[in-house]
């Protein structure tokens, strides 16, 4: 093993090692070469690979902003790449069968592989992704362990540190794993959804892997339509009220989910969904409001989904106030226009009901102001009482 910290040390040794490794790879690429993957050679092979690959990753560069900075490439890449290539050939080879190999490609090794996903070098993560996927496909007995190891990594991200470079790759693998789940979904898989995937919406860096996360969520819904309720409740719980960029992303995800929402599930979530949407429409940030209003542009939702006229009776009272405020004097023209169009749509659905909503709204506004004053006064009074009590308690104790 050569240390790559200082590139000039021992250059000749490093080159020699690389040459040898390259020759090995070329050899096993040929059909003749494949024959060397016998059980006999496996312990030594795994030893060599383990020593080269399984290392603790060097300290993370401080303040690494994944969107802005260039990733720090692994200095030992010339060697690592060839080792990875070699290992990939090994795993893929038809000469290697799972029963004999699984003693050497064991759970400890898989665990190390999963840990390596935190590497900053995207090329390494790419190799890891392919390799882990192959291992998952080939070694059935290791599957549950790999899922658990990935779950542990995600727990750490959500509950302890918020940095990990390899979430996208891990989620991509997960996507195809979920795709392969059999229906009906096992309890373990449902737990994975609620305890791991949904909380993954929480961390600040969700933008990096949101795409892959969405894919996984949609896969779950396609497998079992009832999961939609769990997912919606979870998404609403973690809704990022204070971060507008994240809100816009969540709204896109919401749109995907709503497209798959069936009428039975809709009944259960109807009120929550639209109370929530009303709060989004109330947002101070115009992009959030705009994105929420664009939901009504979605043909599927309007024609047959939750935004259709069948649902208008439940929907309109909840969102009327916010729509009205936005359509009548919002500083952003696009938002104003969109809001007016949505109102028009509901007017066309059912004019009578629409008028009823309008009158109700006007009455409410007046009452609300007076309520506010009353409540504030009442709490002040209560606080005075409490203060007095506390003084008494402190003097007697």
């Amino acid at each position, binding site marked *: 093993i050569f*240390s790559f*910290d200082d590139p000039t040390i021992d250059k000749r040794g490093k080159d020699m090692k690389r040459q040898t490794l390259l020759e090995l790879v070329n050899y096993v690429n040929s059909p003749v070469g494949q024959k060397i993957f016998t059980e006999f050679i496996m312990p030594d092979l795994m030893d060599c690979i383990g020593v080269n690959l399984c290392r*603790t990753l*060097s*300290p993370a560069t401080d303040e690494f902003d994944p969107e802005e900075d260039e990733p720090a490439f692994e200095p030992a890449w010339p060697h690592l790449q060839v080792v990875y290539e070699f290992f990939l050939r090994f795993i893929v080879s038809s000469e290697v069968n799972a029963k004999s190999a699984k003693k050497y490609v064991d759970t*400890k090794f898989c*665990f190390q592989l999963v840990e390596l996903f935190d590497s900053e070098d995207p090329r390494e993560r790419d190799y890891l992704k392919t390799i882990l996927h192959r291992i998952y496909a080939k070694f059935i007995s290791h599957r549950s362990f790999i899922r658990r190891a990935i779950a*542990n990594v995600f*727990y*750490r991200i959500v*509950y*302890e540190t918020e940095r990990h470079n390899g979430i996208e790759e891990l989620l991509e693998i997960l996507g195809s794993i979920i795709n392969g789940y059999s229906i009906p979904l096992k309890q373990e898989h449902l737990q994975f959804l609620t*305890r791991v995937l949904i*909380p993954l919406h929480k961390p600040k860096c969700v933008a990096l892997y949101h795409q892959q996360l969405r894919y996984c969520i949609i896969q779950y819904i396609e497998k079992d339509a009832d999961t939609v309720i769990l997912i919606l*409740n979870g998404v609403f*719980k973690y809704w990022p009220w204070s971060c507008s960029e994240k809100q816009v992303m969540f709204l896109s995800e919401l749109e995907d989910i709503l497209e798959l929402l069936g009428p039975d599930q809709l009944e259960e979530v109807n009120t929550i969904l639209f*109370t929530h949407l009303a*709060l989004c429409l*109330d947002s101070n940030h115009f992009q959030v409001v705009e994105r929420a209003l664009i939901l009504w542009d979605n043909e599927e939702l309007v024609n047959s989904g939750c935004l259709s006229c069948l649902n208008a009776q439940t929907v309109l009272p909840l969102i009327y106030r916010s729509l009205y405020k936005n359509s009548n004097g919002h500083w952003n023209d696009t938002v104003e226009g969109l809001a007016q169009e949505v109102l028009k749509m509901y007017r066309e659905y059912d004019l009578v009901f629409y008028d009823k909503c309008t009158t109700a709204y006007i009455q*409410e506004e007046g*009452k*609300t*102001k*007076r*309520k*506010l004053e*009353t*409540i*504030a*006064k*009442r*709490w*002040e009074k*209560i*606080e005075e*009482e*409490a*203060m007095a*009590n*506390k003084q008494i*308690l*402190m003097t007697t*104790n």
Partner: protein
Amino acid sequence: MMSQNNPLEAPSHSPTPSLTMVRSLPQGVDELSAMGPLELFQSQLEHGLTEAKVDGMKRLSVVAYALGTEATLSSLIPYLTNVAMKQPPHEDEVLLTLAAQLQLMVPNLLSSNTQVLPLLPILERLSTMEETVVRDEAVKAVNHISPHIDDFTQLTSMAKRLVAADWFTAKVSAAGMCPTLFKVTQEDDLRFLYRDLCQDDTPMVRRAAAMHLGEFFSQLSFDKVQELQPILEHLCGDEQDSVRLLAVASMAQIGPKFSPDWTTQALLPLVKQGSTDLSWRVRHNLAKAFSDVALSLNLNENYPSQKSLIMACFVALLQDQEGEVRAGAVGHLAKMVHWGGATLFTSHLQALLPALADDVVVDVRSKCALALMDSSEGGTLPDPIIVKAFTPLLENFLQDEYAEVQLHVLNNLSRISHLLNQMSGVVSNIISMSKAQNWRVRQGVAELLPHLAEARGMDFFSTVLQEPAWMALMLDSVADVRLACVAGVAKLCNVAGDDWIVQSLLPQHIKIYDHSANSYLMRITILQGHAQMA
């Protein structure tokens, strides 16, 4: 966050209701103005949207105090129990505020055992919540109220239930509570529970257990610690490096109470193992806590071989491949020097210093500079050693391209000013640094010059230092440098005596004053100097 000292103080602490919040409440104006504290609180929690709920919860302690102890126990707390147990649970912010507010009620409102006990189920529930901050606050609350509880079985059975939960959240909370619970109850069962936590499947739980390990062990008596010793070894050898690094650092808290015999047998091998661990993170964490760990081993003069073993481990860390580990270790260099004494210094550490002083990583160099300065104090190292070993290094440091390194040395040189006599190289460096680019360096030099005067005598000062360095700094363009000079004038007076001041310094000052008609700043500086001299 609510302030912990006086929650019922100025209204600025209490939340202000908003239109959105109010809109969600169904009652009319008349009804609202007649509601008692409990009804208002309940109304906000039942009917309101999130904002109303949070607003209401923030007023919880106010409600409790307004109701008084009896009513709180009979109506409020049962209601809160329902709130906590509700499925699906309330929003995290509500629960977090609940945990924080409950702490405010103890010990003023609720102080006796029977009064505090009802709070326990609520907090138990909160410590199983998914959201980390809620759990942490609940653990804090339990630790706050448990000293007031006499009914130990309740506490122990709560701990048992938490550890037996199937999801890791409850177990992590249990790990946080165990030290305080044990302190209060001294129940044996808790020890076994903690052992279970340390051997749990989920790395999250083991991490939490390792984090609180030091605290827990420090509560135990000696024979009990002996029983649990295998756990410590187990955690230090865990397959997850994150667990190992926490376990290794916890040793700093474990040792102090116990005899050196036991610590050498039990803890020393673990220190050795930690310093040669494959994962740099473990070594880094150990390096960061090294002097605390070394001190906790309680070794005295009777154990020279063990002491040099520890020193050898330290040396390994100082020479580690990873810059971060070296930087962490160097931070403790001074303390280790004092711990080890002069003999161990010459045998182990002295040889390493040149390499460290020249290290590629700036952090290492700057910490090394600081460490050198710290270790020269306190009398551990005899003067000849200091002069011989440190002088070349100090010269290098003073010429370092990073101001931070230079400053560490400059600011502390006054402590060894009695030795500066023998370090002429250092002195010449200082003189050249008075013209440094970085104003902080110049300020450091200005502060140092009076000490130099003291060390080398006034003749040296007037011949070598005064013209180029002192006067130049007095007139420096940066105010702080001039101020440093002004402060230094007072010390100069002490050192030099009045005559010299009147003879040499004063005429110079007056000359400058007359010539600097342009710059009022200069004149102010001179005047300030005069004030000091008086």
